[in-house]
């Protein structure tokens, strides 16, 4: 085990409390916090440092190293602004629709007393699919819904070829269809704990007082669950907004959303003097995510009040 970590935690756990010193109160408090030092360091190095580096680079002129706003400016011109817009719209749709489906599925398995095996299976499947993205997923859907895909074939046989009606896998709409594949399972996983918090006693009490199913959900279940639900939807937004691999593999890097554009810039498809525009774009993404996270935190606090 991590000896280092245990040592740091030791003063905390093996009761320094037994020593009634007066001056050692603040020392004790420092020791208390030392237990999360490894974690804090890791997060600082792995999350904070890169983010700060990006923030700095976003304002740096690539050739002279001096402060400049040109990266940021360029990041809002040309195809970048539509890219941001597409990215946000795509993420929003990819959050709400899977959010609802995910909730329904989670609810379907959560209340199944005799369906324990079913629940186990669905949960495991969700764990697998929530992380299943990128290339394999893209290939799956190409095989399914491309012009020569299997399902496309079925639908054509039935007389309605989606490709003839404007459908394409290679624009944000197509990407949305594919995103559902991991967004729905993600929703199932993150909403289940909230569902566990809905006590059966509430339902029974409501029925006892004459409430029907609809009234229960309208007055009790819905309001209680709503903050958690919204929070999870925000989470899904973040996940969809950040996604890169799937869209990249699916469209070959041609769909106009921000994450793809950053990838392109990083891979060298850059005009002279614009090397740091990618960092500016990255900064935008971080800011947007940051705002989303703040709302998420507020909602979680609300949800926790009732559901824990």
């Amino acid at each position, binding site marked *: *085990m991590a000896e280092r*970590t*245990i040592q740091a*935690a*030791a003063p905390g*756990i093996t009761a320094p409390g037994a020593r009634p010193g007066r001056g050692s109160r603040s020392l004790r408090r420092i020791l*208390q916090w030392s*237990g*999360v030092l*490894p*974690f804090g360091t890791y997060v600082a190095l*792995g*999350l904070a440092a*890169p*983010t700060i580096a*990006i923030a700095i680079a976003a304002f740096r002129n690539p050739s002279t190293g001096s402060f400049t706003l040109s990266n940021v400016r360029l990041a809002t011109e040309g195809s970048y602004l539509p890219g941001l817009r597409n990215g946000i719209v795509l993420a929003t749709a990819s959050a709400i629709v899977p959010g609802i*489906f995910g909730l329904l*599925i989670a*609810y*379907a398995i959560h*209340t199944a007393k005799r369906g324990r095996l*079913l*629940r186990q299976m*669905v949960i*495991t499947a969700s764990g*697998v*699919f929530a992380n*299943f993205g*990128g*290339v*394999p997923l893209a*290939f*799956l859907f190409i095989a399914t819904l491309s012009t020569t*895909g*299997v399902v496309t074939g079925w639908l054509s046989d039935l007389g309605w070829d989606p490709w003839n009606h404007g459908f394409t896998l290679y624009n944000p709409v197509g990407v949305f269809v594919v995103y559902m594949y991991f967004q*729905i399972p993600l929703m199932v*996983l993150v909403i*289940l*704990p909230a569902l*566990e*918090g809905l006590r*059966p006693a509430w*339902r*029974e009490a409501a*029925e006892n007082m004459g409430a029907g*199913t*609809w*009234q229960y*959900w309208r007055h009790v279940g819905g309001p209680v669950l709503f903050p958690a639900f919204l929070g999870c939807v925000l989470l899904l937004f973040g996940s969809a907004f*950040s996604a*890169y*691999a799937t869209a990249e593999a699916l469209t070959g890097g041609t769909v106009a959303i921000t*994450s793809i554009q950053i*990838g392109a810039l990083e891979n060298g498809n850059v005009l002279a003097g614009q090397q740091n525009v990618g960092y500016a774009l*990255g900064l935008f*993404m*971080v800011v947007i995510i940051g705002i989303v*996270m703040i709302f*998420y935190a507020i909602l*979680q606090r609300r949800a926790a009040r009732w559901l824990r």
Partner: protein
Amino acid sequence: MAAVASTGQAIAQPPGPAARPARRGGSFPVWRWAILLAAAAYFLIPLYSALKFAGLKAFPGIFRQSGFISAMGLSLRLALITTILTLLLMVPTVVYVHLRLPQIRRMMEAITILPIVIPPIVLIIGVLKVAPGFLLGTPYLLALLYVILAMPFAYRSLDAGLRAFDLKTMVEAASSLGAGLPATLWRVVLPNIRTAMLSATVLTVALVLGEFTMASLDLYQTFPVWIVNFEQNSGPVSVAASLFALFVTWILLMVIVTAGSWSSRKRGGGEVALFTVVRQDFSQTTGEPE
């Protein structure tokens, strides 16, 4: 539970004739099957399509392609290292927070949720900028980064597992019986979060085996990256490889989960529910005697 059965009508027909909360038999209401069937269709059809597209003959072709062994090997190695590192980092931290710093739990949740929402693409370009030279040269930088990506899942699983029993009382009991810190962790705490650690492992492994973005930009050929690089050569084989990747992940997870559930049920533990711990006797959530 009557509540359960009559809830069944809820979502399908909201404003309709309010379902009489009568005692129904414990049968699955229709809407539940409808939803699950629709979901199954959406998830299984692409798998089937891919299978059909690739053709069964394409599968043996996977192994014959060059680089398969090394790519697969790299991914598995990374998965192992990431899992170990993640557990080493998160288990003591979460236990410590539960025991000594319960007030920052909310903040911990917020921090550990960040990796889900921080674009890996953004993260990797940042890391490539700040990472020291010696790390950049090895693929194990990826393992270190994957630990960050795995954090949300690991944290939530471990947190849920620890909330399922009264950690503080148990640690004090062990202490009163003469156990020092290591003995307490090893004999009392760890055995009781075995299920949660399993969940964390499962999610971490799934993550590593599927991660493409950071690996490709870091220019290392992990299995997912290898699959992409193969598209040019052979469509069917690539698709077959994708299915294979999914299949391998699935099997791995099922094995881990089944083994874990079985052993924990013996000791009265819950199922491996990934983010929560569900007790056997399914009443309400395990009481939280905090």
